[in-house]
């Protein structure tokens, strides 16, 4: 039957009771998407972030795994092969090759003491990454607790705690690093001779003082961010409900406030890693970093400056490595921020 456009010609079929099948088809059960899944899905779609993550993983493998079975050691000085160009051999090594022995090439040449530069670069990246990760962990713990307590209690507590943060922020960091490393030199040196504390000598007192300084100084930014989050979160109904049910302040901070700013915490910590690496390389460059012969990217660059005119690659290699690490962490952090920021949710 031809339907007239403007008339109500109803179909009787449309008014029959629905069958069970039809009812079932309307019940649409979408799997619930959790906060984490949602964020990770968004992160996976972000190409730049995934490329940076891959880069970070490659650098980590190079830094933590490859040096363990690399034919050269970072502190091993090979006689007669000082300042070799990349992929060249010393006279002794050439003789061994002529005798049909296997000699692993110096991919990046050697430094002034005849140490293989490729392995030094990898171990240097390991130190820089470790510093970045550990320092960011310390900052995460101190900053989030401090900020949460300050924001949660508010009033006088908040004012005094934030004033202290201002003061900490204003003391010049170089001053503190030098003073702390002088101050802990004696106690650390005597502690290092005791059994079980030999690792102190390997890492170096300076590096420990850098960690101390990070713990003492650089939490301020993290604390401020967490505080501002907590200030808005503590107005939420669930916090009032928890209070009414008799939850202690510590429980509210741990279970309700900090868990709800987890996105911010992850993002800020990730972005803290490159800036910690930055600071460490800067300090090693000044000679306040790791103990000789342990290399870090900053000290490698610093050592290379004297021979800059003849051996520019000795400077360029660690410089590129630092830039790569910082760049990929920054880009990955940006990706994380996009993924965890609920405002971006479409």
């Amino acid at each position: 039957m031809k339907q007239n456009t403007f008339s109500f010609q109803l179909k009787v079929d449309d008014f029959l009771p629905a069958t069970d099948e039809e009812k079932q088809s309307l019940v649409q059960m979408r799997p619930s998407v959790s906060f984490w899944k949602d964020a990770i899905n968004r992160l996976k779609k972000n190409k730049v972030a995934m490329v940076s993550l891959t880069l970070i993983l490659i650098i980590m493998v190079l830094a933590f795994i490859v040096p363990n079975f690399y034919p050269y050691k970072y502190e091993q000085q090979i006689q007669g092969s000082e300042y070799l160009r990349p992929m060249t051999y010393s006279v002794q090594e050439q003789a061994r090759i002529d005798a049909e022995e296997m000699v692993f090439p110096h991919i990046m040449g050697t430094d002034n003491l005849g140490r293989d530069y490729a392995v030094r670069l990898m171990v240097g990246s390991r130190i820089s990454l470790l510093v970045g990760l550990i320092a960011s962990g310390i900052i995460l713990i101190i900053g989030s607790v401090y900020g949460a307590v300050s924001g949660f209690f508010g009033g006088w507590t908040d004012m005094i705690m934030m004033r202290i943060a201002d003061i900490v922020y204003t003391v010049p960091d170089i001053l503190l690093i030098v003073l702390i490393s002088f101050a802990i030199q004696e106690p650390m040196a005597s502690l290092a001779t005791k059994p079980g504390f030999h690792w102190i000598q390997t890492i170096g007192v300076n590096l420990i003082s850098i960690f101390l300084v990070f713990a003492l100084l650089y939490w301020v930014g993290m604390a401020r961010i967490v505080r501002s989050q907590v200030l808005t979160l503590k107005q939420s109904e669930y916090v009032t409900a928890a209070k009414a049910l008799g939850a202690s302040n510590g429980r509210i901070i741990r279970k309700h406030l900090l868990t709800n700013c987890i996105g911010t915490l992850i993002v800020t910590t990730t972005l803290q890693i490159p800036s910690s690496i930055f600071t460490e390389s800067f300090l090693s460059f000044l000679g306040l970093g790791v103990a000789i012969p342990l290399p870090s990217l900053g000290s490698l660059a610093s050592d290379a400056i004297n021979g800059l005119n003849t051996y520019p690659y000795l400077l360029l290699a660690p410089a590129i490595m630092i830039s790569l690490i910082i760049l990929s962490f920054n880009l990955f952090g940006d990706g994380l921020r996009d993924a965890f920021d609920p405002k971006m949710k479409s």
Partner: protein
Amino acid sequence: MGKYILKRMGAALLTIFLVVTITFFLMNLVPGGPFVAEKSISEQAQNALKEKFGLDKPLIVQYKNYMLNAFHGDFGLSLKQRGRNVTDIISSKFPVSARLGGIAVLVALLLGIPLGSVAAVNRGKWVDNLIIVIATGGIAVPSFVLCTVGMYVFGVHLGLLPTFGLTSPLHYVLPVFALSFYPTAYITRLMRSSMLDVIGQDYIRTARAKGVSQFFSLFKHALRNAILPVVTYVGPLLAYTLTGSFIVERIFVIPGLGGQFVSSIMNRDYTVIMGTTIFLATLVIVMNTVVDIVYKLIDPRIQLN
């Protein structure tokens, strides 16, 4: 407004006082002293020196004396550079760093603001992508890398630019480049994101709908609001850049305040450390306070307190 400024100044003074106190005691708690390293000096002479500078007195008396003198504007004599006044040292070194730093901040602003705006207006086009890539890369390169690579390429390899000292305008090129690279990249990113925010606002669309040209709507309406985050960043940036970067000053052999500060820490020149710390802290706090006040003056949306 007056009450707010007074309150901020009170807080600033308190912060400076506490920073000075903490630095004083921390510095003196650390083992060793200014005259320990000089082995040629006999014990007697060391004691005489200590007496001359009042270092033999109990710490709390030293603290009281120092604070009283500092309050009167007397920051004492340098312990290491014989016969030189701390105020003299700072006032001779600071202008060198300040001129270099001032130029660097100016360069960063003059490059960063237009670059960020251009990127935002051409969002998603190749210009935007290019600027973003350069700016992101710029944030990742440490200043000592820039210094040394710039020195190698332009100074040694091409021989175009002098690599140390600050005697002619050409000498400024490399240090200013190294100092302004990071702030430029940062300001570009800041400017781009805030410009994107502002361009999407209704009042810009209204202005465009009323027939205001794109150029004019950007400069008259958008730029004024988009520049606010940059203002907050410039305060601390100025404070840190004017006082000199130790790295840049060491690599390019520039006699500035940054290098002076680090060498005084290494030498335990107590009075110079104290004087410079007070100077740096005051500058940082004053800049932050000024920025807060300016921010509230130019952005009426922000409530006082």
